């Protein structure tokens, strides 16, 4: 049977905020998701993830949208394709534009994911959208304090050694809890690794 052609992607453009991230930007419309993934007393280690998006000149991008998709503290996804399924009320999806923070950061308050399948190190899946990207870009965030698990991770192993640090968020202990920082470089010597998912 002949297949249908996949619908071409087009850029998210600069004007997504009032529909995709309305509450964050102060528009009078509900948001399906935002920068906080924590609802109620979901079990797991509270962490914050923050970073900036930088263009080929090293300038901060203030009109990007970042989405994250992650497993719960035990490495289970809230989705029917995960036979274990998350049952702790953790949806695992966050979405934030870089246009409201004074430093144009994305900031996610979430829990640290567990290892998904034993083989992979704990990680967060990231989707990057912005004006000038005709097709979104997939990347991942790993954690600097998971060195042993990272060393065994099959996806990190497929990345040239000198580029792996573009995927590893650096942990910083704050009084309020752990903050992991990672900038996303679209181009340049530290260009982030993007995946063909």
């Amino acid at each position, binding site marked *: 049977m002949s297949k249908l052609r996949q619908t071409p992607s*087009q850029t998210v453009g600069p004007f997504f905020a009032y529909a995709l991230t309305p509450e964050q930007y102060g528009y009078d419309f509900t948001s399906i998701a935002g920068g906080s993934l924590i609802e109620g007393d979901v079990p797991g280690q509270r962490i914050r993830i923050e970073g900036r998006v930088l263009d080929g000149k090293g300038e901060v991008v203030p009109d990007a949208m970042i989405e994250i998709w992650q497993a719960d503290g035990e490495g289970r996804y809230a989705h029917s394709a*995960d036979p274990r399924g998350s049952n702790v009320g953790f949806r695992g999806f966050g979405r934030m534009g870089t246009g409201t923070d004074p430093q144009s950061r994305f900031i996610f308050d979430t829990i640290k994911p567990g290892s998904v399948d034993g083989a992979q190190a704990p990680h967060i899946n990231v989707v990057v959208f912005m004006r000038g990207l005709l097709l979104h870009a*997939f990347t991942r965030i790993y954690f600097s304090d998971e060195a042993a698990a990272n060393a065994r991770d099959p996806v990190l192993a497929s990345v040239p050694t000198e580029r792996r640090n573009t995927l590893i968020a650096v942990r910083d202990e704050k009084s309020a809890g752990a903050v992991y920082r990672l900038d996303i470089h679209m181009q340049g010597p530290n*260009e982030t690794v993007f995946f063909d998912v």
Partner: protein
Amino acid sequence: MTETYAPRDWSSQPPYLHPDYKSTVLRAPTKPLIPIRQSLSEITGPVYGHESLGKLDADLTRNAIKGGEPIGERIVVTGRVLDENGRPQPNMLIEIWQANAAGRYVHVVDQHPAPLDPNFLGGGRCVTDSEGRYKFTTIKPGAYPWGNHENAWRPAHIHFSLFGPSLSTRLVTQMYFPGDPLLAFDPIYMGTPADCRELLISRFMLEHTQPSFALGYEFDFVLRGRRQTPVE
């Protein structure tokens, strides 16, 4: 056997770097993408069903009214979400955003000096039914100028965002209208491979046109399909 998703068909997708669209020059990744073997991380994805909708979310002619009706030509936009094997995709969230009839976005950084419409936001969402169908009622968006090049205008379009069944099926795109003379001059539309551009153009359909109320346009989405792969 575990279910994964067929690869992205790169021949139907715009390239990251398309210099006619100037913003791509400093923002397009320059290194080849690294292939990932799909795991639970890629074959799962965010789930938002009917429970995530407000009552008027799919009717942009009513979801932001402040005592009047929005100005412009009412339209219905409807169609199906399919995968590349033709399988309907039920219970899928679709989010949309668009300019008003005058070509102005509510977004504060839109400085185009066309009027805002106090009764129109331009954002909406709906969830596909059991046959993968969706339907929005809205106002036909106007063309608007942008700074890409001298006298640059975007053709009228509606932005769409779909998750599909998994992270790997994520799709953000734009739907255009048939016969728009601006299409040939638009580097975003023209960045799409020539044989797939028509996939981005809606069809006028008398059967979706509501008598004395709104013109009907049809637009289908095709997402990556499932495939069976043996577990190693």
